[in-house]
């Protein structure tokens, strides 16, 4: 193993190479997590240094696809942090109800747990039919998994518990069929979901939305990239639109904080300010 300064230099070169070759930008991800993930990847690929991994990944696009699994966060839960979804249901949905049609952006949707949670919640509140949910991620494999809507059965007990705590109004089992070892979610849930490849680091706004939900994604970004992404959300949101973050994420340390009011600090929901004063 190299000393950590050399390792850091090699990581910088690898990420630069990935950016130039594949246009995916991990250069502003937090160094601590990139360091750990690449250490795991180096082991997985049987390489001894990041430079060796760099040669592999730049030479073989399939190796890059594999590396993406290490560089992006793969797992989530349905109705993770039930208090958040309860706040969405009880405090945000009644406001969204007043719009003729609603657009919601689940940014960094990973394998889809959150977007299905939203679809279920909106269905129960009678809002799903006039809502479009954009679910975006940079990892094509995750997006494909999200689109399939199939989740491991051993996760379902946790999802069910979260759903109930989040104020679910039906039996959670109404929403999926059980096969051998998987829960296959009702395809009707995704009729209004648009899955799309989108990079928060390099892509721009694609629609005007009333709610952005982006949870446990920003913690992987350094401050500069966080600021870029907050600006992106600001631009995507309609006036008085909502931004929901992860339970330990805040806009407070960002220069973009001045563009938002705190709607619920406990649920980490912020609201874009109205017309400039």
């Amino acid at each position: 193993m190299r000393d950590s300064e050399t390792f850091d230099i090699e990581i910088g070169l690898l990420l630069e190479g990935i950016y130039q070759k594949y246009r995916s930008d991990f250069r502003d991800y937090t160094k601590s997590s990139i360091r750990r993930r690449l250490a795991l990847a180096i082991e997985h690929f049987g390489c001894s240094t990041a430079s060796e991994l760099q040669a592999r990944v730049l030479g073989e696009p399939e190796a890059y696809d594999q590396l993406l699994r290490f560089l992006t966060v793969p797992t989530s839960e349905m109705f993770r942090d039930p208090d958040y979804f309860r706040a969405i249901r009880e405090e945000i949905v009644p406001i969204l109800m007043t719009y003729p049609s609603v657009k919601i952006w689940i940014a960094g949707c990973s394998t889809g747990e959150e977007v299905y949670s939203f679809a279920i919640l909106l269905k129960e509140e009678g809002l799903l039919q006039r809502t479009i949910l954009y679910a975006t991620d940079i990892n094509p494999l995750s997006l494909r998994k999200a689109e399939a809507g199939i989740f491991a059965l051993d996760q379902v007990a946790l999802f069910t518990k979260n759903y109930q705590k989040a104020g679910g109004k039906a039996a959670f089992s109404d929403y999926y069929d059980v096969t051998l070892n998987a829960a296959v979610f009702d395809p009707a849930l995704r009729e209004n979901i648009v899955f799309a490849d989108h990079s928060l680091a390099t892509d721009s706004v694609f629609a005007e939305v009333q709610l952005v939900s982006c949870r446990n994604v920003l913690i992987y970004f350094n401050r500069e990239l966080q600021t870029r992404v907050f600006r992106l959300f600001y631009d995507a949101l309609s006036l008085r639109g909502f931004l929901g973050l992860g339970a330990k994420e805040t806009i407070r340390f960002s220069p973009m904080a001045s563009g938002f009011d705190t709607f619920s600090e406990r649920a980490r929901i912020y609201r874009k300010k109205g017309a400039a004063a």
Partner: protein
Amino acid sequence: LNPFEIPVKNAPSLLVIGCSAGGMDALLKILPALPREMPFATAVVIHLPPDSDSMLARIFGPKVRAPAKEAEDKEEIRANTIYFAVPSYHLAVEPEGCFSLSVDDPVNFSRPSIDVFFESAAAAYGSRVVGILLTGANSDGAEGLRAIVKNGGRAIVQDPKTAENSAMPEAGIRALTDAPDHARFILPLEGIAKQLQDPRSLIMENLWKR
């Protein structure tokens, strides 16, 4: 081209503490020893049940002399402050002189993991880190302590004979077998407390000088 920069020179030095089973009592013996106006920052990772709300800052706040708070994502690390990791998230230190959180998989069955925390501190702060590993029933933190010493920092391990659970400090000592004597110390809690409050402590010298 912007490779990862070397540690920021202006950020305050860092005292990092890790513990698990028995850790609350141990922390209650050493954290109150930290001086008022400490010129360095202190950050603590203790394993707690995943659903437990973090009460640490509130529990320790009245018992310590420096301000205590929970470590938040991208928060600038300031001198004279005692930070606590929140349950269910890894805590790490970034070279920019701030904390970061993550929901990456548990390491050593732990999230937060002491190894993740210590290794990031070692990489970001180099010789300006002192790591303390206390009582615990697993070996999380041992690799991190090794990384701290390897990058020029210093390590203090609670004397396993005095620890409520000796597995963690024993693992820490094993991981430091090759460490030079000036970088590796084994002390009971009273001895650790004494070092923490002494501005002339040789173990802590890199934390006191700016």
